């Protein structure tokens, strides 16, 4: 058991208040000076179904979920269906205890609500406790809460118990509850928490458990945020004041944050009939000069394919968010996966002319969101941000100063009426909106309502004034100009991009990954180097236009590289090989697609097994796939 970190897992049923309780807990630990990272596991159900949130806290920066965890608070699923062992879905009532045992570290602590959970229904429970040296506290949290009049406050009682065992001062949690709760429910909650705390202190041996909360200190003020918060705030700081959408997990988070705030910011949010409309509305608003966005998850994004192509052809600035979840089809709606990469890169007919960014961390999500708007409006090109439930649902601490930035409402290559007067027009006064020339491939635009700016935007190939044209020379000129924008964007990003190299520069081996796996990979790299290996990592956050030079340089510098991604068909490795055309024999994949994100240890194990021992993986959680060159 590692003393320097607490990984607290609160498990129960959906609807048992797991998310809000864990958020307060994480924030209290952050305020105490610790670095925190949460990991959320939940089913696609409103009431019932095993769900947990893990809060990892350490004095040192934490970038990922840990390997397993050391403290379980199992509340029991108060909305469990059919609580019989023979039932198709098993005995749901005991799942919050039973299903979490495998990952509990040796010497760990179990607190469970004996008012709802009967541990004797779990096979070999006693033996496993003994074998693993777990410390078990069976406490009737339900009755304890009921005695104070609120049975639903079992979770607060559990927090009180946790604090008593780990040494977290109750005051820290209470302070947060005061911020978040109305008076009426605050008092009973505080009382229930205290009762749980006192009960353990008085009647149990808390010193037996060797799990305690570490202490730490931040050198500057921190905030607790998710990737969804960061994307929304980035959009707001870029002056985005129009959003259209249709709910779909996990994209709904960004849509909700924007919808709740845009009216007060003088903006407009539209929940519309489907995702085709959502993307089309964003295009319509952007066409009028407004900074606009839409987004969805895989299925909804599929519906956006045709409007996305329209934005490419009409060169309408557009930002779309794609919050990936496990597919195909409805897949596993609440589980993370990175399998929509190819979908986002290539969907819609014709040659893709788009930008795709995949932030790796919460801080980077804010950055990527701002960058997406800048590129979209400066280059008049649709820009997508792909992320997944891992980044959307994880909360982590980021220095508050990271967000202390000036807004940028600039709408890029858009002309004023005065500027329009000096631009080329047809004899009858139509503005040449789509000139063959144009710096970096960008031909500046006008906006309806402006004098001297009228033109036709069309999804057909068109001449400089926008009229439909199938003239071969014009076609090539327009196509080449649009493609040229991608080179310019690549150059921009090469100067100041989102790629992160990590580990010793002269390392022997490499790990290549993209998007939300960044933190986990980096933690694995640290451990490998500590264990005497020589490894560095490159996380690619720019997928189109692809940073071929940077990736090539990275691969040139290592013997071999493991490509880590959360999907079954090695899409990122495939993209890399396609873009580089070389280095295939250096690459092999470590894949995971069971609905849970990688743990650092799985990458450590994958690395040593494959690159060092050249062996096979034992379990079925992760999988190797050799590269084409092998």
């Amino acid at each position, binding site marked *: 058991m590692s003393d320097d970190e607490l990984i607290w897992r609160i498990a129960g049923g959906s609807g048992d208040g797991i998310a809000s309780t864990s958020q307060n807990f994480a924030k209290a630990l952050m305020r105490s000076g610790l670095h925190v990272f949460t990991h959320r596991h939940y089913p696609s159900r409103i009431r019932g179904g095993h769900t947990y949130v893990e809060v990892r806290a350490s004095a040192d920066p934490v970038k990922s979920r840990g390997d397993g965890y050391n403290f379980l608070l199992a509340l029991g699923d108060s909305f469990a269906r059919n609580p019989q062992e023979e039932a198709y879905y098993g005995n749901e009532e005991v799942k919050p205890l039973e299903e979490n045992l495998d990952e509990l570290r040796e010497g760990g602590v179990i607190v469970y609500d004996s008012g709802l959970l009967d541990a004797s229904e779990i096979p070999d429970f006693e033996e496993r406790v003994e074998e693993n040296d777990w410390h078990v506290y069976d406490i009737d949290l339900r009755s304890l809460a009921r005695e104070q009049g609120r049975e639903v406050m079992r979770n607060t009682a559990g927090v009180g118990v946790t604090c008593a065992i780990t040494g977290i001062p109750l005051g820290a949690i209470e302070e947060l509850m005061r911020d978040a709760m109305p008076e009426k429910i605050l008092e009973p909650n505080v009382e229930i928490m205290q009762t749980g705390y006192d009960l353990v202190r008085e009647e149990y041996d808390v010193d037996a458990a060797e799990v305690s909360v570490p202490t730490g200190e931040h050198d500057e003020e921190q*905030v607790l*945020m998710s990737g969804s*918060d960061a994307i929304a*705030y*980035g959009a*707001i*700081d870029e*002056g985005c*004041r*129009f959003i*259209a959408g249709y709910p779909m997990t996990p994209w709904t988070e960004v849509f909700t944050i924007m919808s709740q*705030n845009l*009216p007060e910011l*003088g*903006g*407009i949010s*539209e929940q*519309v*009939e*489907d995702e*085709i*409309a959502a993307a*089309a*509305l*964003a*295009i*319509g*608003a952007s*066409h*009028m*000069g*407004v900074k*606009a966005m839409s987004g969805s998850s895989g299925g909804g994004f599929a519906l956006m394919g*045709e*409007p996305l192509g*329209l934005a490419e052809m009409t060169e309408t600035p557009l930002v779309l968010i794609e919050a990936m979840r496990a597919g195909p089809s409805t897949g596993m709606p609440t589980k993370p996966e990175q399998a929509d990469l190819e979908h986002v890169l290539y969907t819609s007919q014709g040659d893709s002319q788009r930008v795709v960014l995949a932030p790796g961390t919460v801080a980077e999500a804010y950055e990527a969101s701002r960058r997406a708007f800048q590129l979209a409006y400066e280059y008049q090109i649709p820009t997508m941000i792909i992320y997944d439930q891992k980044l959307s649902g994880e909360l982590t601490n980021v220095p508050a100063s990271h*967000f*202390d*930035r*000036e807004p940028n409402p600039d709408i890029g290559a*858009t002309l*004023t009426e005065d500027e329009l007067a000096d631009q080329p027009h047809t*004899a*009858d*006064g*139509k503005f040449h909106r789509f000139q063959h020339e144009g710096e970096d491939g960008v031909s500046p635009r006008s*906006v*309806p*309502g*402006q*004098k001297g*700016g*009228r033109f*036709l*935007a069309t*999804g*057909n190939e068109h001449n400089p004034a*926008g*009229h*439909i044209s199938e003239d071969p020379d014009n076609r090539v000129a327009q196509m080449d100009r649009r493609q040229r924008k991608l080179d310019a964007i690549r150059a921009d990003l090469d100067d100041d991009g989102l790629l992160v190299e990590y580990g010793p520069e002269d390392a022997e081996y490499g790990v290549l990954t993209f998007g939300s796996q960044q933190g986990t990979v980096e933690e694995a790299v640290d451990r490998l180097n500590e264990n005497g290996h020589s490894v560095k990592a490159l996380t690619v956050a720019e997928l189109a236009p692809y940073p071929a030079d940077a990736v090539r340089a990275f691969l040139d510098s290592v013997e071999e590289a493991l490509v880590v991604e959360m999907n079954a068909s090695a899409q990122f490795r495939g993209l890399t090989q396609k873009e580089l055309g070389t280095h295939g024999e250096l690459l092999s994949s470590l894949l995971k697609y069971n609905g849970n994100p990688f743990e650092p240890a799985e990458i450590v194990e994958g690395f040593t097994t494959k690159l060092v021992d050249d062996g096979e993986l034992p379990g079925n959680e992760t999988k190797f796939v050799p590269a084409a060159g092998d």
Partner: protein
Amino acid sequence: MSAFSAIGEEREIDRDEYTPDIEPQPTWCPGCGDFGVLKALKGALPEVGRTPEETLLVTGIGCSGKLNSYLDSYGFHTIHGRSLPVARAAKLANPGVEVIAAGGDGDGYGIGGNHFMHTARENHDMTYVVFNNEIFGLTKGQTSPTSPKGHKSKTQPHGSAKTPIRPLSLSLTSGASFVARTAAVNPNQAQRILKEAMEHDGFAHIDFLTQCPTWNKDAKQYVPYTDINESEDYDFDPTNRADAQELMRETEDKLYEGEVLTGVYYRDDDRPSYQQEKQNLGEMPDEPLAERYFDGDYEWERSYDRFIDKHK
């Protein structure tokens, strides 16, 4: 000062301003009803005092979708079935612009039917012209949602088994606050109805009968027609919803029996437009959103000031 000086400009407007110089010339077949829409629109726009540069004509795909290639204004030729969502947002982003959407019967009642229903329901302040030629024109004559039952085409060799859609009834039920039918062969009425539609504050839907002599030879040229607002046979009040509903049904049935009824079927001038509803709820700014991006003095709020405290 507005960054859009074309909006609200008061001046004489010549209908020729809407006609491009030499190119592009319409490529519609001789005798096509689509010419009638173009002509009526060119007549109506100066009447409502809207200049080319304060007008945005958003179209779908089809022979009909070419409309804005031949009308000189701001135009957005979108994709099949999607003119309405693009047009809707354009109007929300800058309500000062006159927004007109147009497309075919396949475009609007088929592939874009969902948007039609919802745009009508929301009562966006715009005009929507559906070129109803009872056929897919551009793709060479397949059966459309308004083709009569039994209609034979290359893709329905035994005749359509489907009852046609009822465009007027659907519009009314969905919530349109102005519903009319006119015909290309009736230019004066068409121009008058278009003018009324543009002046109406809400969603104004016009089912515009446009004969397709190339692929739909069986269909009538939509003559003779009866104007229900003028004919003495019809004592009709378009503000009466129940009457409108009844006459719409009759009109839809009669079309397939060879009798063409046209006119304004329904209007509700009291219903607030979607923009007004949203503004009443505080969900849409009073000043056009588009202006803000040209206003150097506007104070943009920072996310840091609004949100950071709740994350501490």
